[in-house]
């Protein structure tokens, strides 16, 4: 079996030698460069534009504005443009809804010429009042018809039965994915056919969106993305760089590359929205929950009739309670639309829920882990459905053992070393473990190699590698015989690489394609008089290392290559489909689980916090590749350290513009911020998901921020309710 082995990343060699080609790396004949000019205001109308100086600058080919841009059709966000995306018309009228919304695109022969000319475009605006943060309009918070409240039992009577009630409100800041790769698009028209190279988590979403916007049939649009330099949710939808690059290419008749700057990254796609999360828990003296009351207010963009679907669902509650009420509400602000950032909502909601659980632990005198065990949900709390599988308790056990949790002194400020306060905190982690419909083609060549083609993406997590592993097992060859072609709309379609869908989607789809291919070839063999397998029952034939043989007579058989060559077949191919139940549908609650244990050391005098030890245990069913996955988990925890301690996009409320749109102003964790992280897996069988694979891309990060918040509270006695936990919040 190849699945389960720590196979080395197949494209690693190309990445370490600089040979892997990302969107902005690919040269084309006649390629010209586009630079977006963003609105300097956050709300208003364009009253005048002066592009003359820009036109006169050297090398300029075109300046696209709402006066001369190709007309586009509205793209319905909910259905087409992915988790969120720009649904406002780009360069179609004079309205400005957020700072840095494109108001012009300058195209020139070289990037430097385009940049200079872009700096010369003069725009005047009639300013309208902008809402910079939801705190200016909390009274206008509204419920969305797409974000249904969760109501189980009767919360009021639940609280009436409670011996202890705790309430906490957390304020979570706007944060940005800031993947290392800047968003880049290259658009190339040939007649009415369009090819777009894109840094995207979803070639399919881009194709569908472009086709609607530009009035094309989907077959006229091809989108590819061989390598992606990280996404974390920020490259999953149709955002304006795709539209503006396509327009620029249409207007100039040249292939156009558009790369947004680091400063523009905060407006060129969505972000983790600012939110206020209030949790009230009622419990018996023994810690068992009687009621959970949870409500959120989240920022959404000013132009959406309803908030983007990705942020409207509410964080489910991971604990058993007879009464649950969870109500999400929204406030419109003048920003780009929010979008998931390594989990749509669990990553934020759990900060408040797990903070409240720790406060409940203090009030009931229970160990935080024991409190969570007592409230373990043996069914999906909000539907009553059984879990497809649930290894949470095993995760608790393994994590606590590896961390040494039993040695924790429950008293805040009780653990010290030198002048430093030591704090230990933990959090439950969980996340939907589902997949989406997809198809793949598996091709066996006469030399015995296998090609898998699938329109999924590798956002850095290792999709190329796991496709090889899954296909190797399904077809019956070694993994080195398999190559994958992905991220191209000419290939069989697959869903966006979001929502922790990819591993499970690949497992289901590629297994079916590989099995179909294997069966097809076996059928050729048993019908071939020249084959040693002639006349055998197909189900009696098994394949190992590319050789078909009878199950009961290993000597009788031949290799795939021998069969194909003898029959003059250059290749045999087969399509596999994957049709899982819809999200949240089906007979079982399908979730992956985990637990985070964090140790922090706080300098109480200076307020500095360092994470010094970390254990994360994940139960995500079968782990396809422990090498790539362990690295992914460590990186995911690091992402959570940033969420907890360093990252915030600072909104200037006077201008409704983000003030720190740079890598020096927005602090992602650096090497020295991150300790050794012990990433462990609990594997349980899950018969309800393909190949028992659940997926964990977001689960890696979920749980980290709340565990750190709880650790800081344990270290200092200060429960910080506004992330990130910077020094100023601990000076006391």
């Amino acid at each position, binding site marked *: 079996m190849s699945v389960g082995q720590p196979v080395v*990343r197949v494209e690693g060699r190309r990445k*370490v030698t600089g040979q892997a080609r990302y969107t902005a790396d690919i040269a084309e004949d006649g390629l010209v460069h586009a630079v977006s000019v963003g609105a300097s205001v956050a709300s208003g109308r364009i009253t005048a534009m002066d592009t003359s100086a820009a036109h006169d600058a050297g090398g300029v080919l075109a300046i696209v504005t709402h006066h001369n841009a190709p007309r586009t059709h509205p793209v319905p966000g909910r259905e087409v443009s992915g988790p969120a995306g720009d649904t406002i018309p780009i360069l179609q009228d004079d309205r400005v809804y957020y700072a840095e919304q494109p108001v012009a695109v300058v195209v020139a022969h070289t990037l430097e010429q385009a940049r200079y000319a872009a700096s010369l475009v003069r725009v005047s605006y009639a300013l309208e009042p902008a809402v910079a943060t939801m705190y200016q309009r909390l009274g206008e918070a509204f419920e969305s018809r797409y974000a249904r409240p969760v109501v189980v039992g009767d919360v009021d009577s639940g609280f009436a039965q409670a011996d202890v009630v705790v309430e906490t409100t957390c304020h979570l800041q706007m944060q940005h994915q800031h993947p290392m790769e800047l968003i880049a698009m290259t658009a190339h028209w040939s007649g009415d056919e369009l090819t777009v190279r894109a840094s995207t988590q979803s070639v399919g979403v881009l194709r569908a969106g472009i086709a609607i916007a530009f009035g094309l049939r989907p077959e006229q649009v091809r989108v590819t993305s061989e390598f992606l330099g990280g996404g974390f949710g920020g490259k999953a939808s149709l955002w304006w760089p795709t539209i503006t690059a396509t327009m620029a290419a249409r207007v100039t008749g040249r292939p156009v590359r558009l790369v947004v700057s680091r400063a523009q990254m905060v407006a060129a796609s969505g972000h983790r929205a600012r939110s206020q999360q209030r949790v009230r828990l009622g419990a018996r003296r023994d810690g068992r929950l009687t009621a959970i009351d949870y409500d959120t207010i989240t920022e959404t963009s000013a132009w959406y009739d309803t908030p983007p679907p990705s942020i409207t669902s509410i964080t489910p509650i991971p604990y058993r309670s007879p009464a649950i009420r969870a109500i999400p509400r929204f406030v419109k602000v003048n920003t780009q639309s929010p979008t998931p950032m390594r989990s749509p909502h669990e990553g934020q909601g759990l900060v408040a829920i797990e903070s409240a659980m720790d406060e409940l632990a203090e009030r009931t005198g229970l160990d935080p882990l024991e409190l969570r065990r007592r409230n373990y949900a043996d069914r999906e709390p909000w539907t009553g459905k059984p879990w497809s599988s649930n290894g949470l308790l095993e995760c608790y056990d393994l994590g606590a053992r590896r961390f040494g949790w039993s040695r924790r002194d429950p008293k805040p400020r009780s653990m010290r070393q030198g002048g430093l306060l030591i704090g230990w905190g933990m959090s439950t982690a969980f996340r939907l473990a589902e997949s989406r419909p997809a198809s793949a083609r598996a091709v066996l060549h006469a030399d015995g190699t296998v090609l898998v083609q699938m329109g999924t993406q590798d956002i850095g997590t290792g999709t190329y590698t796991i496709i090889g592993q899954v296909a190797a097992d399904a077809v019956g060859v070694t993994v080195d015989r398999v190559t994958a072609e992905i991220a191209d709309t000419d290939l069989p379609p697959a869903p966006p690489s979001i929502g922790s869908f990819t591993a499970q989607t690949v497992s289901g789809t590629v297994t079916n394609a590989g099995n179909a291919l294997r069966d097809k070839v076996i059928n050729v063999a048993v019908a071939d008089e020249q084959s040693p397998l002639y006349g055998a029952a197909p189900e009696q034939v098994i394949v190992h290392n590319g050789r078909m043989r009878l199950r009961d007579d290993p000597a009788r058989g031949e290799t795939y290559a021998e069969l194909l060559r003898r029959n003059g077949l250059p290749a045999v191919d087969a399509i596999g489909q994957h049709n899982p139940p819809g999200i949240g549908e089906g007979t079982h609650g399908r979730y992956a689980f985990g637990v985070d244990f964090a140790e922090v050391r706080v300098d109480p005098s200076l307020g500095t916090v360092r994470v010094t030890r970390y254990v994360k245990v994940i139960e995500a069913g079968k782990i396809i590749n422990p090498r790539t996955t362990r*690295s*992914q988990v460590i990186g995911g925890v690091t992402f959570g350290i940033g969420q907890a301690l360093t990252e915030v996009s600072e909104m200037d409320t006077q201008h409704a513009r983000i003030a720190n749109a740079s890598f020096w102003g927005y602090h*992602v964790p650096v090497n020295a911020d991150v300790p050794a992280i012990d990433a462990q897996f609990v594997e349980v069988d899950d018969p309800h998901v393909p190949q028992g694979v659940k997926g964990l891309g977001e689960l890696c990060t979920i749980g980290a921020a709340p565990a750190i918040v709880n650790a800081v509270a344990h270290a200092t006695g200060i429960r910080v309710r506004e992330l990130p936990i910077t020094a100023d919040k601990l000076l006391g």
Partner: protein
Amino acid sequence: MRLRCEVNGESREVDDVWPGESLLYVLRERMGLPGSKNACEQGECGSCTVYLDGVPVCSCLVAAGQAEGHEVTTVEGLAEGEQLDPVQQAFVEKGAVQCGFCTPGLIVATHDLLERRERPSDPEIREALAGNLCRCTGYEKILDAVRLAADRKAVS
């Protein structure tokens, strides 16, 4: 202006370079060497790290003219033909690569560290790589790779 410098051991000459272009831009857009990446263009992430006269620099902060007459080595110049440098090999083996966008800069920075220090301590590694941001791997596997490469270089 005309820019002449030695890149990965070859003399290169490029015409019509505008003084405002960065060395990174010249490498990527004019010399066909896109291995060095642009991720911030502010010297804040290390993705564009190259050797300039034997010391690692952020090539996005080097004006083209400053490279005139100097020697540049990029990530494309570290492997000997098909033979990966031990640093490159270790990054692949240890799972220190995910999306790979920060990788070229990290490879160059690590290569330099191991040229200067045979067996760097962990704090020395963290200090040497402090200017290389990574958003996917979380650094620990990168440290593993550096240690492995150091071991192998010390033995060879």
